[in-house]
């Protein structure tokens, strides 16, 4: 009893030490977050109540910037377009990324590394260079249209300067954000589970639909949510690939700061976007948890 008591006390003291050590390790990152993330957020929130007219900020505060967000049809349409694009892009990434993640799981050594490199390589290129380069392929005089014309298509479809162009441009880059979590989920599945199902006579399709796919759902949700949330902030790709006809909420916010000198309204709109993102992340996390709990 005495020994156990001493042991328990020692364990508790060790835990406290570990806990202290952990806090110490976390402190630099926490401080960095405080300065570069939380403090700007507080400033953003405060500035969001300022009103600006003709480039001059009034000294009074008001909720008008928030009212503008909800009452202006142009802004609301931009929010709707952003959500639609985000959903379509996240879905596109999932449909294209899942098979890639599956191939990576089955591949070994160098092939797996090559696939990984191919998936992350778009992230290593400058966004301007990448988008402007797409003109060479998808533009009116681009590779695809030239080939189509050679094949007798007199009026080839527009592949750029519309929603499709934006989706292609963003899916190309954000694919990695789906592939990596899905791959992590797939890699954590014990192969013995699938082998057992197969040995009991399940076809490969059945094994995939009843074992592999359900067990990889947390990765799917994580990847989908990540891409969806990232897409809410897309700016440059819609500007270039959408020919500026695809108006997203980020474009409206950027213009408020740059051209209209209205930081107050831009801040209020940013706060609203932040709230939207928080709700989405929370919902994604809840859904993910529901799928994790049976395991």
């Amino acid at each position, binding site marked *: 009893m005495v020994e156990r008591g001493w042991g328990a006390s020692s364990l508790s003291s060790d835990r406290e030490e570990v806990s202290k050590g952990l806090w110490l390790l976390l402190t630099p990152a926490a401080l960095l977050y405080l*300065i*570069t993330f939380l*403090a*700007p957020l*507080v*400033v953003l929130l*405060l*500035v969001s109540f300022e009103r600006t007219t*003709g*480039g*001059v900020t009034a*000294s009074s505060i008001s909720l008008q910037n928030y009212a503008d967000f909800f009452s*202006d*049809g*142009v802004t609301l*349409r*931009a929010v709707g*377009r952003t959500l639609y694009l985000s959903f379509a892009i996240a879905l596109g990434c999932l449909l294209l990324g899942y098979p890639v993640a599956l191939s990576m799981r089955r591949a070994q050594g160098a092939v797996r590394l090559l696939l990984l490199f191919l998936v992350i390589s778009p992230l290593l290129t400058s966004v*301007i260079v990448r988008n*402007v380069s797409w*003109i*060479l392929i998808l*533009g*009116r*005089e*681009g590779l695809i249209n030239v080939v189509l014309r050679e094949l007798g298509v007199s009026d080839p479809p*527009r592949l*750029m*300067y519309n929603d499709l162009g934006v989706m292609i441009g963003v899916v190309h880059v954000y694919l990695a954000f789906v592939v990596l979590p899905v791959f992590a989920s797939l890699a954590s599945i014990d192969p013995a589970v699938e082998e057992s199902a197969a040995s009991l006579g399940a076809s490969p399709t059945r094994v995939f639909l009843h074992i592999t796919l359900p067990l990889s759902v947390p990765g799917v949700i994580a990847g989908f949510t990540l891409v969806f949330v990232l897409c809410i902030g897309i700016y440059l790709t819609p*500007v*270039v690939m959408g*020919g*500026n*006809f695809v*108006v997203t909420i980020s474009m*409206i916010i950027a*213009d408020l*700061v*740059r*051209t*209209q*000198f*209205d*930081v107050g309204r831009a801040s209020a709109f940013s706060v609203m976007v932040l709230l939207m993102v928080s709700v989405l992340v929370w919902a994604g996390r809840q859904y993910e948890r529901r799928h994790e709990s049976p395991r």
Partner: protein
Amino acid sequence: MGARKQFDPTRRRFLSLSGSVLAAVASPFVMSAKAWAQSKTFVIYSFDGVLGRAFKEQVIPPFEQQHGVRIETITMPGSVPPMQKVKAMVEAGRPEADVIPMQLTDYVFARRNNLVIPLGPSDIPEYKNLYPQFITEHGPGLLLWSYGIAYNTRHIKEEPSSWRELWNPAYKGRVAINDPIFEHVLQMVNLTYSGKLLPINDQTFARLSELRPNLLTLYTTGAQAEQLLRREEVWIGGMWNSRTAAVQDEGVPVRFIAPKEGFFVRYNPFCIPRGARDPDLAKTWINYVCSKEPQGLIAEKGYQGSPNKEVVYSEHIKSRLIVTDPNVIQRAVKEDFDAIVDNVADWRRRWDAWKQA
């Protein structure tokens, strides 16, 4: 003992302080420690692209040599100063640069918010050689650039003379106009159909909608505009002369013209922010940039016109720049930048609605 200033934690002070701290932390233009360490280092905002290179390689070195200083440049992305950041820094009493070249709408913002100091002929002796319309209360307007028509000479054999040519049905899907300085487009539409720049109204947007079938894209960056011309995606459009000239010199069959209804000329007032570390050196620098030799270099290397009457252009650069002689400068339309800043929010809202339609 002097009166000690009490700390007054008002919201405005807090915001100013936070703004400057954030600006310092999050700035994309991180200044080197060396720049701060050298007392004779002088910091200016500069341009990106060809113009930035011209400044760095051709304009700055002679000044450094002559005055024994080292100039540290902070490149403005898109050659546009971050005015909100400038405001935060000026209000905090510590602007990071001593000279800020501004776009004209930025200048209105700076003037209205009292961010820059006045400059007169006693500060800038070179004023005597500048065309008076390019001298503002707070600095000289340098780097004259034009917004007119660029067209592809391979696809369009007859030189267009009017903005109306953009509406020509033969150019369906082959026209581009710009988005960031969209007020040029709106004023251009008015100029074409009513002969006046303002007001921007339903009629303006109705005419703009008639242009829509011809529009391939609304370009944002100069690099994008160049690529559209280079790839011959666009045959005709409202473009900036310097970008057209750069592509033309690569051998692409394009030309830039000033339409008969009028064209747009803008310039960058070079201003000194309040609280600048070395305003005297800043004035000397601005005076130097105004002078004949640097202005000639900027024209030759950066395709920008000069307000200096003494600058002599080569025949080659004369053919690339529209604004090389006073008669042509007179043909440029006179924009009301205060009206633009006052109305830009409403215009932008309508512009975005038009884009979404």
